Every structure is written in structure tokens, then in C-alpha cells.
């Protein structure tokens, strides 16, 4: 059987890769995809704990996370389209008009 710590290690590695991409990438769509990667890493941890605790609540949390991710993707991509229409750029460095 797969040890719990190995599944959690995979989850942590995926989360950290997503966080690194969030810091390093300049394209707003790629940054958004890195957020999805981090959400999936958290989902993996939920599934692993659900399996090892023998309860289904973790799986239902993943279900709700997926639903919220779908809503988030729809609204987020609509915001990106509206931004692109107004500013003609996807580079997050050019989208700093709210910076002090």
C-alpha cells in the first residue's frame, strides 16, 4: 500500500511548483494556471487524508473545491478578457494601475 507521507510529499511538491510559477511567470493566464495547480495539490492532500482516515468528508471537500474552481475559472477568464480588451496586454507588470 502507498504510504500516506509519500502522497503528501507529492502534494507538497506540486503545490510548491505552482507557487514558484505564481512568482516567476509574467503572463496572467499562466499565473492563473499555476493557481489551478496549487488547488489540485490541496485536493490530493484531501483525498489522501480521506483514504487514510476512512471518511468520505475529504472527498466532498474536493467536490466543492472543483465546483468553486470552475466558478473561479469562469469569472477569472472573463476578467482577463475584459482587461485585454482595455489594456491590450497580458503581462502582469503592465497591469499595475492600482499600485501606489
Amino acid at each position, binding site marked *: *500500500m*502507498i*504510504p*500516506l*507521507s*509519500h*502522497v*503528501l*510529499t507529492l502534494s*507538497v511538491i*506540486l503545490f*510548491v*511548483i505552482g*507557487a*514558484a510559477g505564481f*512568482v*516567476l*511567470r*509574467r*503572463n496572467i*493566464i*499562466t499565473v*492563473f*494556471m*499555476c493557481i*489551478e*495547480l496549487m488547488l*489540485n495539490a490541496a*485536493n*490530493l492532500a484531501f*483525498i*489522501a487524508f*480521506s*483514504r*487514510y482516515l*476512512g471518511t*468520505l*468528508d475529504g*472527498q*466532498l471537500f*474536493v*467536490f*466543492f473545491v*472543483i*465546483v*468553486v*474552481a*470552475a*466558478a473561479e475559472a*469562469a*469569472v477569472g*477568464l*472573463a476578467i*482577463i*478578457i*475584459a482587461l*485585454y*480588451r482595455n489594456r491590450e496586454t*497580458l503581462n502582469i*507588470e503592465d497591469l499595475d494601475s492600482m499600485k501606489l
Partner: protein
Amino acid sequence: MEILFYICAAVSVLAALNVVLQRTPVYSALSLILVLCLLAVIYLLLGAEFIAVIQVIVYAGAIMVLFVFVIMLLNAGREVPSERSRLARWLGVPLVIAFLLEVLWAVWNQFPSGTAPAADFDAGPAAIGHLLFRNYVLPFEVTSVLILVAILGAVVLAKKEE
């Protein structure tokens, strides 16, 4: 069983690295779809059949199609590195590696590798349905309102202004 998990884990880490290292968003999106499908296989190995199917249908199917669609609609090409992105690299990468080591240390201390999975575990759609509509009815209903608001918001935001 175990060997399949380790193969999927290794390939998904490589694909996740590809998501981050590619400069062209379409390649990142395709790598992300690979990661999501491999995670669905891992969910199957962990006994979460329903979530594995949902992962493929909703995540890899619906959400990523939305991403690829927007990437192609906006014709997002290669990103060019800049001065500030170099600063992010010098500051961000050490911080992220420190975070990785810290959490790994916590995981390996907290959960020694001998932890056994629960013996009797029924994760079929029937069991999930019972739990969802008995204990989690309120979150389920709130979720439907959330979806409605998201649809309205997406339409209003993406609408062309007169």
C-alpha cells in the same frame, strides 16, 4: 498498484515543472491537462472513483477547455523576460525552496511512513450521494447560488461595452 503510483507521481511532477518552465501558455495548458489526468489516476488508486471521474470531466474537460479557448482567443504568445522578473527569480526561488523543505520536514515528522490506510472504505457514488444530500445539503445549495452568480458575473464582465 504502488509502482503505478510512483510512475504517475514522477510524470506529474515533470509535467507540473513543464507548466511553470514553458514560456508559451498553450504548452503550459497542455501540460496542466496531463497533470490533471495523472492526478485522476492517483485518485483512483486512493479509492476515490467518483472524484477521479469528476476530475477528468469537469477539470480536464470543462475548465481546461475554457483556458485553452481564452489563450487562443487572446492569441497569447511567448512572454518576454524583464528586469523585474529577474528580481522575482532571485527572491522567489529561495523562498519557495525554503517553504518546500519546511513543509516536507513537517509532513515526514508528523506522518511516519508506517501509517496504514483505513480498512473498510466504501467510496462509491451511492455513499457520496448519501453524505452529500444528508450532511452537506446547505453547502450544496449555496454552491448552486455561487454558480449562478459566477455565470452572471462572467457574462457581465466579458460583455462588450456599448
